[in-house]
């Protein structure tokens, strides 16, 4: 069974995608047959509709009263059939749940976005789920009570499956917005109490910016309160927190999805690729069968499928060495820099979008685990000095010593860290080469490792900053086929090791192309004497032909194709 084969049937409200199982949407008598519809290798994710288990604000039923709440029986069925499973506990309003998951007695005030609009989301069955404020004190009381009861239930039932906390957000106007972001009366009252508590002598909020910052801090603190409560109450089972972007969940998307034409495949695809680049996990649970079709269905199955799910939830890891299994391929990682948008301001993301589109990813944090370090060894890593503390800086230096390529914008770097860098260079007897072109750049080499620092501040106002990046990437010598195609054609690369029959190649790279538009598209791939076209795979409404420079592809509307290239060293 290939991991790329997605077993979930689109349009199934009980199994709405990403291996989720909505137990409350079907009769308990049908659970067994529905569970068997998952592929045996797939981990089953069970989102907890905590409001569904409420008998009162503080009394919870796990099957004593209603069979559809009997999650012990559900786990017994899963175990009986040898299925791996885990729980997903919403730590914010959950767009796929009625009331956002909040029990009816606590659902008092609807969440409101910054434009004053109540948050309501159309689900897969075209029902309107209204989101209720998590700033209402009764919601927290109820949540804490549920966590305690659920923890006791898990312990007494000896269920060992892990519980993941989930923080949901939607994507609108180029931004990810948490479902915790709220401007309801409940939020304003909570904020007022927060201000009084932290500033008993009064707070002068005449400055709009200051007020916005404080509201953000307050929101973060409440978000953290829900997280720590869940973490403490479910400690033996706690798997961690996943941030999940719900496709189709924004207020504008609710309006758009209500039109006859709905939100277009192209717009969903753009969102999905944006989430990929930003390393954000998604759920397609809200999308209808009509919405989740053609290109979108293929992209979800091929790049957000069970293998990626297993990786994301730490059930499996690709490992350091390339194997014969294809894995996602990228060449660059950007860390932090989001708040200040430093990488955009430096012109770096614009450069990457032009030359390494969808071959880079942005991460909030450096995940400094042995598995992560191994899997991402070859990626060039960018950091912004302002984001670094002593620990992170030490980790970056270790990555360099391991032979990795690091680029650091010195803007905002703490003087102590700068001093530490100088000591590190002296201690290791490392020579620094300086280059002055548009800004000051220092290069340190150690075996395969490169440590490049530059003064980003000087680049900010530099009109020719693109030239700086051209020089940097020429020095880094990244070898990659060149793609010439429209902005509305989407591609993702994968890589694998060679088989015994392919010894002449260093590795094999597969590029998947998708055309979610209603127009024919032409793509030209230039291999630049480093790649040999091997084969095309699963063309749908597409054809490819070899040219002296590489390959030309014709993609009809909703067409897709994958091409394999053998990577070799130039003789």
């Amino acid at each position, binding site marked *: 069974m290939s991991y790329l084969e997605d077993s979930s049937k689109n349009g199934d409200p009980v199994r709405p995608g990403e291996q989720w199982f909505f137990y409350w949407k079907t009769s308990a008598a049908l659970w067994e047959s529905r569970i068997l519809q998952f592929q045996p290798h797939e981990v089953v994710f069970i989102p907890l509709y905590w409001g569904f288990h409420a008998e009162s604000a503080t009394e919870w039923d796990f099957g004593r009263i209603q069979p559809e709440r009997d999650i012990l029986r559900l786990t017994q069925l899963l175990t009986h059939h040898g299925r791996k499973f885990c729980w997903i506990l919403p730590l914010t309003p959950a767009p796929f749940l009625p009331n956002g998951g909040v029990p009816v007695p606590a659902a008092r005030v609807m969440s409101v976005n910054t434009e004053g*609009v*109540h948050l309501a989301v159309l689900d897969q069955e075209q*029902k*309107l789920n*209204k989101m209720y404020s998590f700033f209402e004190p009764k919601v927290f009381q109820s949540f804490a009570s549920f966590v305690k009861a659920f923890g006791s239930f898990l312990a007494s039932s000896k269920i060992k499956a892990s519980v993941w906390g989930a923080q949901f957000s939607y994507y609108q106007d180029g931004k990810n917005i948490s479902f915790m972001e709220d401007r309801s009366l409940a939020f304003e009252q909570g904020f007022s109490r927060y201000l009084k508590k932290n500033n008993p002598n009064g707070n002068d909020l*005449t400055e*709009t910016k200051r007020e916005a910052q404080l509201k953000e801090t307050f929101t973060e603190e409440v978000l953290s309160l829900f997280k720590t409560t869940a973490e403490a109450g479910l400690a033996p089972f706690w798997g961690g927190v996943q941030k999940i972007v719900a496709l189709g969940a924004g207020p*504008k998307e609710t*309006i*758009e999805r209500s039109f006859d034409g709905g939100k277009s495949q192209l717009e969903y695809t753009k969102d999905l690729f944006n989430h990929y680049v930003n390393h954000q996990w998604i759920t397609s649970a809200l999308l209808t069968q009509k919405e989740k079709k053609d290109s979108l269905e293929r992209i979800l199955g091929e790049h957000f499928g069970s293998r990626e799910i297993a990786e994301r939830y730490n059930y499996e890891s690709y490992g350091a060495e390339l194997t014969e299994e294809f894995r996602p391929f990228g060449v660059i990682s950007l860390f932090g820099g989001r708040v200040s948008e430093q990488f955009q301001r430096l012109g770096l993301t614009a450069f990457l979008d032009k030359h390494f589109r969808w071959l880079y990813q942005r991460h909030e944090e450096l995940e400094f685990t042995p598995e992560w370090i191994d899997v991402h060894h070859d990626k060039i890593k960018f950091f912004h000095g302002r984001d670094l503390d002593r620990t992170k800086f030490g980790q970056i230096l270790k990555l360099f010593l391991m032979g990795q390529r690091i680029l650091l914008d010195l803007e905002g770097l703490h003087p102590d860290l700068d001093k530490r860098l100088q000591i590190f260079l002296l201690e290791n007897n490392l020579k620094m080469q300086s280059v002055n072109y548009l800004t000051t750049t220092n290069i340190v080499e150690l075996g395969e490792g490169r440590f490049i620092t530059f003064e980003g501040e000087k680049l900010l106002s530099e009109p020719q900053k693109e030239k700086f990046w051209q020089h940097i990437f020429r020095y880094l010598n990244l070898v990659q086929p060149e793609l010439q195609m429209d902005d509305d054609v989407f591609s993702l690369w994968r890589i694998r090791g060679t088989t015994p029959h392919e010894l002449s190649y260093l590795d094999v790279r597969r590029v998947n192309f998708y055309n979610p538009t209603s127009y024919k598209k032409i793509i030209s791939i230039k291999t630049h004497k480093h790649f040999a076209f091997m084969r095309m795979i699963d063309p749908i409404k597409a054809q490819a032909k070899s040219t002296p420079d590489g390959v030309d592809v014709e993609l009809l509307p909703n067409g897709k194709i994958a091409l394999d290239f053998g990577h070799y060293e130039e003789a």
Partner: protein
Amino acid sequence: MLNLIYHFQTSQNQDEEFKPASYHVVYFFDDQGFIDRSMLQELSKSVPNADHQALTFLNLDDLKDFALRVSQELNAPDVQLISVQDYNIGLDGAKDLASFQSIFQKYGEKIINEAAQKKKGLFGKLFS
């Protein structure tokens, strides 16, 4: 069908500056999608004393003039205006797609674009 959701903001002191009451465009869309913001900003210039960048108008009549101007530009027969407050009331009562779609009919204030109505041929009038 064109729809405009607007937000009424009472007068306030912001950053030590007095801001008069205003009507702010939140969402402007038809059944094909959201109207391009730069186009809306350009068309808002037909209304004096408005904040064209932020799409904010000093009174409801100005907002209606702007909405009508957009409907004329897009040759739409009418445009429905609904305040965020009314939209929220509609959302509170809606349960599914059908009831969500009816919010605009139920709570919106329709402004007719006479010019587009006149342009309708015999068949258009018969089937409208």
